[in-house]
Each structure stands twice: as C-alpha cells, then as structure tokens.
C-alpha cells in the first residue's frame, strides 16, 4: 500500500509539472502538453490503496473526475494511463477520453467526469455478478459532495433493494470545489445516510490507510459473502486545489499548512520506520522503484505519437 501511495504521489507530481509547461505567463488551459482541466488526488491516496488492496482485476470499480490514485491502486496500466493524459495514440483510449475518462477493461476500471454518476453502473455490475453467482464485487468511489446528488440516494436504495454486492466509498476531503461540506450538506457525516437505506455505514477518520484497509475489508468481505451493500465515508485531505490553477482563496488561513503537516505519505513512512516494518534502505529502494516506473511512463507518454485527426471518428460505435 505504501509503495502504491508513493507511486501515485510521484505520478501526480510529474503530471503537475508537465501540466504547467506552456501555460505561463498567461494561464491558458488549452496550452502545453496536457490540455483541459486537471484534478489531482494527492492527499487522498490512502482511500484508494486501503480499498483496492481487497480487490482483484475481476472486481469492478467506478471512479470520479479525480481518478489517478484509484486507477493506480486498481492496477490500471501506468504507461497507457500517462499516455492518455498526454492525449497520445498509445493512451488507454487513444486520446479520446483524457484524464477524467480513464477506462481499462483489463482490470474493470471506469470513471466519469459527472458527480455521483458512477454509482448506478456499480450497482448494475454488482447485480450482474450476483445474478451470475460470481464472487465479484463492485466499488463506486465518490466525493463527499456527491452525497447530495440524486444518483447517490437512488443508487443506495436500489443497491439495498437488490442486495447488490457493492461498496460505496466516499472520499470526504471537506470541499466540493470551493464550497465547504458544512455549507452544502445537512448532516455532518454521510455514513449516517446509509441507515436511511438499511445498509451498514462506516466512517474512517484520520486518513489512515490501515483503518481504511480494515473498514473496507469488512465491507468488501460482506459484499462478497452475499451480505449486500455498504457505505464508507473516509476523512481524507485534498492537498491540491479542485483543479490545477485553483487559487484556493476559499480555504481558511492555515488549513493548507495543517493538511500538509498531516500528509499521509510521510505519516505512513514514519509509522513503518518506527515500527521497524521497513528500513530506511527498504524505503529508498521502494521509492526509487515507484519513481522510476512513473518517470518511464511519463517519458514514454511524451515520446509517443499523437493520434491522427481522422482517428477522432473511430469507436463512436462498437
């Protein structure tokens, strides 16, 4: 889990650097090697690794507009993912989807740029698994802002009515773009909403991968054993703005400093070293390995050819 978190962070750091190329002195979203919006997930890595550690390639995951950490934890091909983000022909979908629409059928990973809308497909995939008597599960990742969408409530209800083997994971970073959770959500904790639909709800605090791993393990095991859906809200932190270029004027003074002080990666590193589960040398090897995988993916993405304009017409239909 630690290595995956490190890899995800390294990936996002390289993406952020590349994203800024060509976008200054005047910020223009269309310029540079990575056009469009870019939503980074750094700080939220524990949610992805803690949940996905219980999944294999056959399990189905839908992610959000902030998908990189989940994609990496689910085993999406790193080279093809990087190439997709750079809009290259060798990308997951040949540059048709980009960063908010990453699909890797090999590991049953999908995402969407529309809030809460991955939940219905997760219920459907889970229902199909149940119908076919397969021991597969589906997991829908959403942000805490998505809990106010109709799709959230409809999908929880449908999953409960059909007792689908699905786990809904809310990454609660406290901010729906620029609006604080307290200003947008009538209840303090969305896991309480699970009770409305007769399913277990669980809240994990502290952005702690071990606690997330434990809670997710229980929910996923229950789903796999035919025990139906669960909802987990995970307290996490968005270390970046909503998108790159977001000045974050809405954040209270000092909040970012406090978040960085609780950055989950150094925290886990300290814990692993402190508990002698990893040596400094192990850490160095592991970090180098993760960084080199990322460097290679980014370098390959940069070197890859762009798709020809005519390829825009492919894959509209199967």
């Amino acid at each position, binding site marked *: 889990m630690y290595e995956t978190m490190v890899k995800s962070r390294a990936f996002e750091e390289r993406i952020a650097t590349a994203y800024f190329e060509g976008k200054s002195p005047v910020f223009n979203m269309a310029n540079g090697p990575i056009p469009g919006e870019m939503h980074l997930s750094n700080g939220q890595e524990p949610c992805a690794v803690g949940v996905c550690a219980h999944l294999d390639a056959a399990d189905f995951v839908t992610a959000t507009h902030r998908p990189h950490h989940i994609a990496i934890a689910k085993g999406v091909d790193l080279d093809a993912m990087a190439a997709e983000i750079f809009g290259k022909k060798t990308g997951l979908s040949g540059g*048709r989807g980009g960063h908010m629409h990453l699909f890797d059928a090999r590991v049953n990973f999908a995402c969407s740029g*529309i809030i809460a*809308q991955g939940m219905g*497909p997760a219920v*459907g995939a889970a229902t*199909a698994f149940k119908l076919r008597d397969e021991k597969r599960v589906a997991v829908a990742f959403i942000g805490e802002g998505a809990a106010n969408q109709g799709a959230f409530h409809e999908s929880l*209800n449908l999953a409960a009515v059909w007792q689908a083997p699905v786990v809904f994971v809310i990454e609660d970073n406290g901010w729906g773009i620029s609006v604080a959770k307290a200003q947008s959500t009538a209840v303090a904790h969305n896991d309480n909403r699970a009770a409305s639909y007769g399913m277990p709800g669980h809240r994990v605090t502290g952005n702690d991968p071990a606690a997330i791993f434990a809670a997710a393990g229980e929910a996923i095991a229950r789903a796999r054993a035919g025990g139906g859906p669960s909802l987990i809200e995970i307290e996490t932190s968005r270390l970046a703005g909503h998108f790159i270029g977001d000045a974050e004027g809405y954040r209270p003074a000092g909040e970012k400093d406090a978040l960085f002080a609780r950055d989950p990666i150094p925290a886990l590193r300290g814990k692993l070293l402190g508990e002698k589960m990893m040596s400094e040398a192990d850490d160095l090897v592991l970090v180098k390995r993760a960084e080199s995988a990322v460097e290679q993916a980014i370098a390959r993405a940069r070197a890859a050819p762009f798709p020809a304009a005519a390829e825009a017409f492919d894959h509209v*239909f*199967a």
Partner: protein
Amino acid sequence: MTATATIRENRAKRNLTIAKAMAEALAQEMRRDPSVLVMGEDIAALGGVFGNTRGLLEEFGPARIRDTPISETAFIGAAVGMAAVGMRPVVELMFVDFFGVCMDAIYNMAAKNCYFSGGQANVPMVLMTSVGGGYGDAGQHSQCLYGTFAHLPGMKVVVPSNAYDAKGLMLGAIRDNNPVIFMFHKALQGMGWLGTVQGSINDVPEDDYVVPFGQAAIARAGKDVTIVGLGATVHLALDAAQELIAAGIEAEVVDLRSLVPLDRATVCASVTKTGRLLVVDEDYMSYGVSGEIIASVVEAGTVLKSPPRRIAFPDIPIPFSPTLERPALPSAEKIVAAVTALLRGGR
C-alpha cells in the same frame, strides 16, 4: 424491400400488435441468450404500462424480469454497469419525457463509454421508451424527442411503425453491441386505451429475423411526391396517400425505421424519382428530424421541382386541451394540403 416481402409463403398469417411483437422478441432472445434481462418500472407483474413485457415474468422470473423503483437515474445507470460486465440489459424508460431525470446515464455514459474507452468498454443495452401524444396527456407525457436522442452521438435510434418491424428491430437492438434507443409510439402499441392505428398491426412471423438498422422502407410506392415519415406519421402519410389518389396524385411514402443510422440514400433516391419532398414528424419542428432530412436531400444535390416542405409539431410545449393539442399535431389532412401545394409548385 417492403416489410411483408420477406414473410414466408404457405403460412397462416399472424397479426400482432407492436406490444406483442416486442414481447415476443424479448422472450425469444432471452431463451437464446442468458445474458439478456429486462428491467424498468412496472414491467414485471403488470407487463409494462404499454404491454410490451407481458407474459415475460411468468416465463423468466423476477431475477431476469426486474421491476425497479421509480428511480430512472439508478436503474438506467445500473444497465450501463451490467452491460460493462457482459450482460445485455433491456431497460424501459416508461415515457421518453422522463429522460430529464436520467440523461447522464444515457448520453454521458451509455453513449460515450465506447468512445472514451477507445472501444474497450462497449455498452450493449437497449433503452425502450414510449413516445407520442394525441390523447390529452399534456406536455410531460406526450413528446417524441426523436431529434434530441438522434442528435447525440454514440446511440443508435430506431422507431418502428408496425409490428413486423418492431420484432425485427428489437432482435437487432438486443444483439447490437451499442446502446440502442427503441422508441415506440403509444398510438401504435395496440393498447385499447390509447386508441390503435390499425396499420401498425401486421403479420409477424414466429421466426428469428432481424430488420437491419439504417434501411428505410418504401411503405408505398409512388411517382409524384415523396412523403417521409417515422413511427405514427408513416400511417398518416399512408392515409393521405390514399386520399390523394382521387386527385390523381401518386405519393411515395418512406418509413425511416431508424434515425441512427439514417438511410439518406433511400430518401434521396425516392426524391430523385419524384422531384418533391414532404417530411412529416411529430417531434418539434426546429432543429429536428424534418430539417435533417431536408438538409440531407439538398446537400446531396437532389433536383427538386418545388421547394421541400415539412409538417411537424410547432415549437410549443404540448398542450392538454384537445382543441389545443389536436390542431398542432400532424394529420392526414395537413399532409394532403401540403402535397397539393407542393404539386402546384408553391409554398
């Protein structure tokens, strides 16, 4: 090729309604392919508000014939997920007018996942939905919205005008690896309470057959004018064509059958023959099917003897009162008048 041309000789005719033809197609395909299931509101014990899933629950049981909560966002989204993992769900959106509550699942996921995934994630699902007015149900239960769905890339859109086509289009829709929007007109379903256009009830073979998408039918041959319709307006055009015979006018009626893909070639060939074009659409006039057909004919360089015309629903919400709604709908009388004007060469 007319719909009846492929029906075998030496067989007793079996006239079915569109609703029964749809149910028969679903049952046949569910027997053949265990990955097919049907879900939606009131489709199980009730057999569908428009009758197109009658009898299926008894044969296939509640796991494959699933009544859903009134929760289109969730269950149409669920169909996308089922399709992603190898099922072939057929899902009903009871009235097309309800698309507003669930459009993301339809146009952002079902329609775009294939493209966004570079062909990795196909979405083989069918969305059945009822369209059409004329029975005083007002503007949230009477729209056609053909243009809305046909306008957005990534979905195939079919509109049967008769039972033979409904069965063949449904079998083709379920087997298609893409999302297919199957739009059935209420007045053609054969449900007594909605009135029934007799022409929609025709001979349906028990065989397994597919009506290919993108092949318009010549519902009636003629040489003086081409009338293009779809769904219910095909029958209005046929009625008008019958009346026009008395005036010595032979109208050719083209039934589009599918909007995506659209058979522009058959339309253009017909207009090349007749030199005159009238499009009849029950959907809203502006930015819709009627404009698309006329543009296609003009862009193809087809020589016209008089400017093309169209009859469509005016750009107003569909009103409730019969004295407001009925005059706004296309009718055989309007078609006769428009054709007569076309043949005089005027507007």
